[in-house]
């Protein structure tokens, strides 16, 4: 095991928010795309470009919210935030910086510092490879790349509502389990894949899964394999599904793969996360003894920062409207793309309304203007490169769905986003160029472990997806 050293602990504070609602990733496959897929499958298999094309059009969040998200205390409070930064030594040339972000819960107010009973609830984690390289002139240089980023998925802390994780791999597992019980004629009693039950465990989900296009793509991949094997009569459906879900692109990490969790588990002897409510700060301090030396809690002072009352300044969640689900989708997408590009903070505005940018069009038919931004690493001379990467990713991932080669066929969306990787992401948007209908939604990214689109608020979210795959298989026959 690699050596892990706690570098710094930084605390901060959030703002009051509206109650968030569960919305999960969904695949809304248009009828003509079903026909297209069948056609392609009959020709020998789905090609990647076709999958991307269809996924770009059909991924989205469920429009109807499914239950309010349960959280410790309430959403309407200033929440303590905490960032743990570790160094993991790999070898002389390579070092990994591991970040674990979480929010604080419990504990009592004390004058002499932070109560050790305060719990650190993990939300996100990522690691940055810091490698010494030589540039083409032979001069030493340092390359910093985000090599891994994930969010944690947690169950309901209060009432024990039965939440299920629906990462692509969970859906695959679910279908696989369903089919095997079906073959025994016992599918009526199939209650689902136990590993996806969040009341049981802490799960890790790749940050990419927050991108509903990515989710759609993974599901389509499974569907494509199943359809293909069905048509060619090659492998059985169990083989094709298990083959697809254990492929690298869909695999997920284990919690114990994370160096921080591994260190905690080794020290405390607890390897399971049943009913996990976070680690207490005292517990962390007992494992990483320099905790108090590197702790910086100055920013945990509510008087230091003015409160931004998001409850007063943004719309409440809970409606079944496209504008709300799109705002939520943008917030999740930005949280994914920012880390993928290597930014912690980015402000931008974008539109695909040609009238807005004076008649000339970029290739994608999208204009994106960026404001301030911040790189993920401390001293980064190449932050601007990361920003450009982000801009490109956002145009590709988000606007594909609304754009068409023909201007009259597109849905015009104007957005203005302030995204913080660990803070609040506020999204202002309106459709069809009608600024009168502008809405402003704020999504607290530090609750993503509870609000993630990979969590299904009700069982129907999962069964919807499972039945989709199952029905598709039957439909082509």
């Amino acid at each position, binding site marked *: 095991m690699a050596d892990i050293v706690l570098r710094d602990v930084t605390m901060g504070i959030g703002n009051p928010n509206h109650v968030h609602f569960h919305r999960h990733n969904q695949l809304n496959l248009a009828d003509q795309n079903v026909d297209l897929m069948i056609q392609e499958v009959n020709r020998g298999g789905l090609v990647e470009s076709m999958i991307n094309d269809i996924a770009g059009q059909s991924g989205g969040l469920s429009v109807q919210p499914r239950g309010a998200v349960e959280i410790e205390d309430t959403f309407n409070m200033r929440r303590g935030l905490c960032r743990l930064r570790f160094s993991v030594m790999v070898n002389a040339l390579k070092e990994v910086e591991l970040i674990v972000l979480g929010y604080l819960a419990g504990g009592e107010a004390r004058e002499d510092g932070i109560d050790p009973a305060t719990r650190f609830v993990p939300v996100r984690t990522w690691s940055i490879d810091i490698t010494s390289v030589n540039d083409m002139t032979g001069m030493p240089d340092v390359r910093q790349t985000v090599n891994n980023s994930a969010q944690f998925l947690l169950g309901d802390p209060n009432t024990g509502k039965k939440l299920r994780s629906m990462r692509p791999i969970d859906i695959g597992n679910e279908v696989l389990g369903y089919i095997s019980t079906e073959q025994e004629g016992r599918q009526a009693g199939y209650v689902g894949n136990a590993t996806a039950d969040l009341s049981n465990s802490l799960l890790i989900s790749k940050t990419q899964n927050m991108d509903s296009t990515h989710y759609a793509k993974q599901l389509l991949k499974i569907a494509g394999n199943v359809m293909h094997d069905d048509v060619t009569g090659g492998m059985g459906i169990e083989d094709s599904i298990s083959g697809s879900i254990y492929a690298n692109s869909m695999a997920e990490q284990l919690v114990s793969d994370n160096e921080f969790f591994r260190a905690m588990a080794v020290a405390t002897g607890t390897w399971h996360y049943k009913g996990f409510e976070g680690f207490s700060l005292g517990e962390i301090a007992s494992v990483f003894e320099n905790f108090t030396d590197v702790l910086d809690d100055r920013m945990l002072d509510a008087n230091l920062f003015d409160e931004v009352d998001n409850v007063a300044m943004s719309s409440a969640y809970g409606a*079944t409207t496209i504008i709300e689900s799109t705002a939520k989708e943008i917030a999740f997408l930005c949280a994914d793309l920012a880390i993928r590009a290597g930014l912690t903070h980015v402000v931008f505005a974008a539109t695909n309304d040609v009238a807005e940018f004076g008649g000339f069009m970029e290739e994608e038919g999208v204009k994106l203007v960026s404001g301030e931004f911040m790189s993920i690493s401390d001293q980064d001379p190449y932050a601007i490169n990361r920003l450009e990467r982000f801009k490109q990713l956002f145009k590709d991932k988000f606007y594909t769905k609304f754009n068409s080669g023909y201007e009259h066929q597109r849905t015009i969306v104007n957005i203005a986003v302030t995204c913080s990787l660990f803070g609040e992401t506020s999204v202002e948007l309106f459709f069809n160029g009608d600024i009168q209908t502008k809405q402003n939604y704020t999504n607290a990214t530090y609750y993503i472990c509870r609000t993630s689109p990979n969590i299904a608020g*009700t069982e129907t979210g999962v069964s919807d997806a499972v039945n*989709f795959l199952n029905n598709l298989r039957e439909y082509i026959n």
Partner: protein
Amino acid sequence: MNDLNKLYKAILMAIGGIVKPNSQVVLSVGNKEIDIRVDGMYLYLPVTEVLESTETSDKVFFHPGCEHITSKETEIFKIIRRMVGIRLLELFKKYPVVLASIAAGKEKRNWNQNILNILEPLKEAKKKTVDELEGIMARFTVEIDDNGVDTRFIHLKVSKGAGRSQTSGGGKVYHKTKPVFPMYSEIIKRLSQSEGQADNQTVELNGVSVSRGALKLLAHLFQVIIPAVTDPESASYESTNSAASRMISYFGCFEQIAEQMNRIQNMFRGDFDKLGIYPIDLSWTEQMEELPTLYRQVPSLEYNTHNTQDEAAENTNAMNGMANMFSVTSNNQQPAVQQHHQLQQQQVANGQQLGMPVTGVIDGFVVTPPPMITGDRYIRYEIDHYANQVRHYALNTLTNSQVVYVCTRAGTMLQRNDSVPNNQTSGIPGLTMPGIGMNPMMAMMGMGGGLTPQQLMMMQLTGGMMQPQATPASSGGSVITGNQFDNPVY
């Protein structure tokens, strides 16, 4: 209200629904309003005002138009099917009496031969026979009954289309709906079997004796009110557009049946009006062809796009009364729960014979025994004031060992310990501490399986039905409860 909702509202009204001012959809039967629920959530019309309110999370919307082409019957469609069944059956039931009174009355000059033919058998029929019809029709249902006997009056059968349409321009058929009349077929079968017998002879119809004359009259009524009974294919409807295809084909078929039933009313408009029986409003049907474009006015919504339940499990939903029928569940846990209650009652009954459990509250402790597992015989209870718990002792008749049900002060069951052999501790029950009697296997289950007590209970009741959980279902035989989660197991 947008065009789509106007259409939905018209359809709902036509099939016996009411849209309340707050847009909630309820069913009206007789003078009663029955709530429609899916997984416990009330049904609403997806009007903008409701969609934009911030309280949509616990509502289900009526949006069958967004059903995906690959989907099987959705939960919303199940409701539609039942509403249509009830609407047509209730209307049909009213006809015989009206027609009989018309036939008994004075013949009108403008009646043509067709009308005379319709009324002829009714005129001849005795009052007793007409009365008997009511009894027969009362046993018509809208669902296959619990014993699997098909007593349905009508069923509009939707099947996945194949090939090209013969009727509408040769497009690809996505869904086809054809009416079937299970009771009519049964009546015809009985009549032909008893061919040549006198009208006052009795014939058995689904286990009930009825006179042959009444059956003959009923068959006649079927034929004149819904001529499609003799040629169901003529009333079938094919949809050739992949969008909303099930709905279009279903209501296409419904329209033709409803039209036939309206036709006979309109022959005797005045008489039906007097009794307040009005035709089914079908003015919305011409808008159905716009549905493939209209349905986009509301985004795709859960319970409408994809079925959330498998068809195989569908029939296990036992239909006990009207309210139950309109409370659709997407997963099939409900029957299991009902079974659980039945067992509970049975157990209480057993206990009264053997150990006489006390029910009620003593010293502020609820001493009513908890639901027990089959095979446990109740012995007695003991109040533990220190732990604030009530312990119920019972004998596991299978292993002949003592089991303890630990309950809270309020009577909620916490756990069942059965690892205490009878010969060891029967004298000192107070020593059985909650949690100590838990064997390691149970602890494992608590860790990995994560089942709620109820689920575990069901697992035992149904003989390991839920095995795909990959937990050792057959082990222990004890109920693990939430309070053990607090004791981490290393």
